[in-house]
């Protein structure tokens, strides 16, 4: 393992920001794994640190295949993490909306450029992603449908679901989109939590990534058997939104199968406790996302179901 500073940025008042990468193996650039780009992505950083542990062991045993190199970047934006911010603290910009970056541009464009220049050219790119809303996810893998790489590859992670997403205009400045533009097959792995550590989901994510690397012949690793992944277009999943606002209670667990008409959660008045809304499933399927916070606004996605 080689620990390297991939990009540095001086701050007027803080210690220099050093984006650290851990390099395993030698030779062909095979896989890059990127963790936290936002200050609340603690789970994403944690999963990467676990990957560093695993890859270290594999490397010591000579189980990283000849002529394959793997790079792990646990955290890009730890500046924000250390002060409890989500985005770049100075101007509230999101590094994951700045790719491919621009070396003469604004600060976060320069960070994106500095990091991207080091993780470009890998055959596979894996990003530990988070969702902008508080909630629990069934660990799954997602891919942007840019026509470049085959969604079938998602099956090699052995997670329960692989979701294909049509890119929208604002996706064009994300890491994953730009990875694909520069011919890296890019995946987003969702390991449930964001600002807390969920050990079980972290285990699942680590095994999934190891399984994937093993399937591509980059490492040889023994992992517990995975799922036969079901591939599904995001547009085909059902999102249930809150019809009222108030105190939210979920009545189900993610991963559970529900029938059409089942009550998945309730919303009650925050002052008098009266139930103001029952959230019923409009389809039968598996719940892969549930909103997780005591308070909820109207029109908020509270459950996502795979039919």
């Amino acid at each position, binding site marked *: 393992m080689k620990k390297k500073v991939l990009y540095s*940025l*001086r*701050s*007027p008042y803080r210690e220099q920001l050093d984006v650290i990468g851990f390099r395993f193996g030698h030779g062909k650039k095979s896989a890059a794994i990127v963790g936290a780009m936002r200050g609340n992505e603690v789970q994403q950083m944690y999963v990467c640190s676990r990957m560093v542990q695993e890859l270290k062991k594999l490397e010591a045993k000579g189980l990283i295949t000849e002529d394959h190199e793997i790079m792990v970047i646990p955290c890009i934006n730890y500046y924000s993490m250390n002060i409890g911010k*989500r*985005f770049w603290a*100075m*101007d*509230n910009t999101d590094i994951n*909306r700045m790719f491919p970056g621009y070396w*003469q*541009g*604004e*600060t*976060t*464009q*320069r960070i994106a450029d500095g990091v991207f220049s080091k993780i470009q050219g890998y055959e596979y790119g894996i990003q530990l992603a988070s969702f*902008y*809303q508080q909630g629990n996810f069934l660990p799954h893998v997602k891919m942007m449908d840019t026509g470049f790489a085959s969604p079938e590859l998602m099956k090699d992670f052995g997670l329960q679901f692989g979701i294909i997403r049509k890119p*929208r*205009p*604002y996706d*064009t*400045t994300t890491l994953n989109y730009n990875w694909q533009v520069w011919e890296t097959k890019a995946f987003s792995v969702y390991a449930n939590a964001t600002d807390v550590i969920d050990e079980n989901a972290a285990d699942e994510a680590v095994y999934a990534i190891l399984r994937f690397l093993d399937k591509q012949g980059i490492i040889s690793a023994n992992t517990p058997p995975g799922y036969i992944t079901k591939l599904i277009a995001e547009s085909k999943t059902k999102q249930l*939104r809150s019809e*009222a*606002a*108030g*105190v939210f209670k979920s009545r189900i667990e993610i991963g559970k199968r529900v029938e059409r008409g089942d009550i998945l959660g309730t919303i009650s008045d*925050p*002052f008098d406790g009266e139930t103001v809304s029952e959230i019923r499933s409009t389809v039968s399927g598996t719940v892969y996302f549930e909103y997780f916070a005591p*308070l*909820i*606004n*109207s*029109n*908020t*996605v509270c459950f996502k179901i795979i039919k």
Partner: protein
Amino acid sequence: MIETIATAALAVNENLNIQKRRIENGRSKKRLSLVTGTHGDELEGQYLAYIVGSYLDEHIDCLDGIVDIYPALNPMGIDSITRGVPMFDLDMNRVFPGSKDGTMIEMLCSMIVDDISGSDVCVDVHSSNIFLKEIPQIRMSVPTAPALLPYAKMMNVDFIWIHDAATVLESTLAHTLNTRGTKTLVVEMGVGMRITKEYCKQLFGGIFNLLKELGMWSGETTPVREPIVSEGREVGFVNSDAAGIFVPCVSFGETVEKGDHIGDVVDPLSSKTVEKVDAVCDGMIFTLREYPVVYGGSLLARILQPASGGAEK
């Protein structure tokens, strides 16, 4: 008439309401929409909305048509000094056109678009951000320029910036409305969190001139200035390479020559100048950094070069 054009229930005993005021007189159904407050830290449009609305009230007989004023598309943001939508830390101007059955913000955006659509002209007023000061200008993308330029020239701005189209900007209100046939002009002027009365009055003149050109206004107007159009000119970007405190030594709007000293980045701890900042090209400084703390990459100034082949080159 004040109208709530979009609403959503918040968790505890409150609704998020987006409101507009319709000022109408005469027979004409021509409609101008004055829209602002998408970014909660931009306030120049607040004063502009006030002076336009109150002048129309006082001279309502001179109006023939409809003026809709939307002062706060992101009311929660303005109320909490937050650029984006506070609950989501989301830039509202990256969510358009929204969607009727989307998330709360997508739904609100879609209702906003529906309400403004059909206006003859929409003026969307922004005021940069807290970091940069801008001379009154209108920005448009190359594909929209043929339709918008004649109207932009009526607006009494100093500068019209025609820029390349970027995919990410397809999620703006202006792009959405222009795509749907509602001519929308994006104004940038002044600086975040402040009101520059002089600029608001300048735009005020532009709006009444536009109303007159649209045949909606028979009252007094003042002659408008001829804007500089960026076509055939380059814009020079001056970014900091060092971290520290930026202290400019030129004035906003000043014309400089390439290599002119325009400011310094200094370090308060070591008392050293860490970067001497020079103009990257000849031209007029139309953007200047207002907020002193800088990182490598922070934008310090933008310079509009003279027309190519011009005498200065």
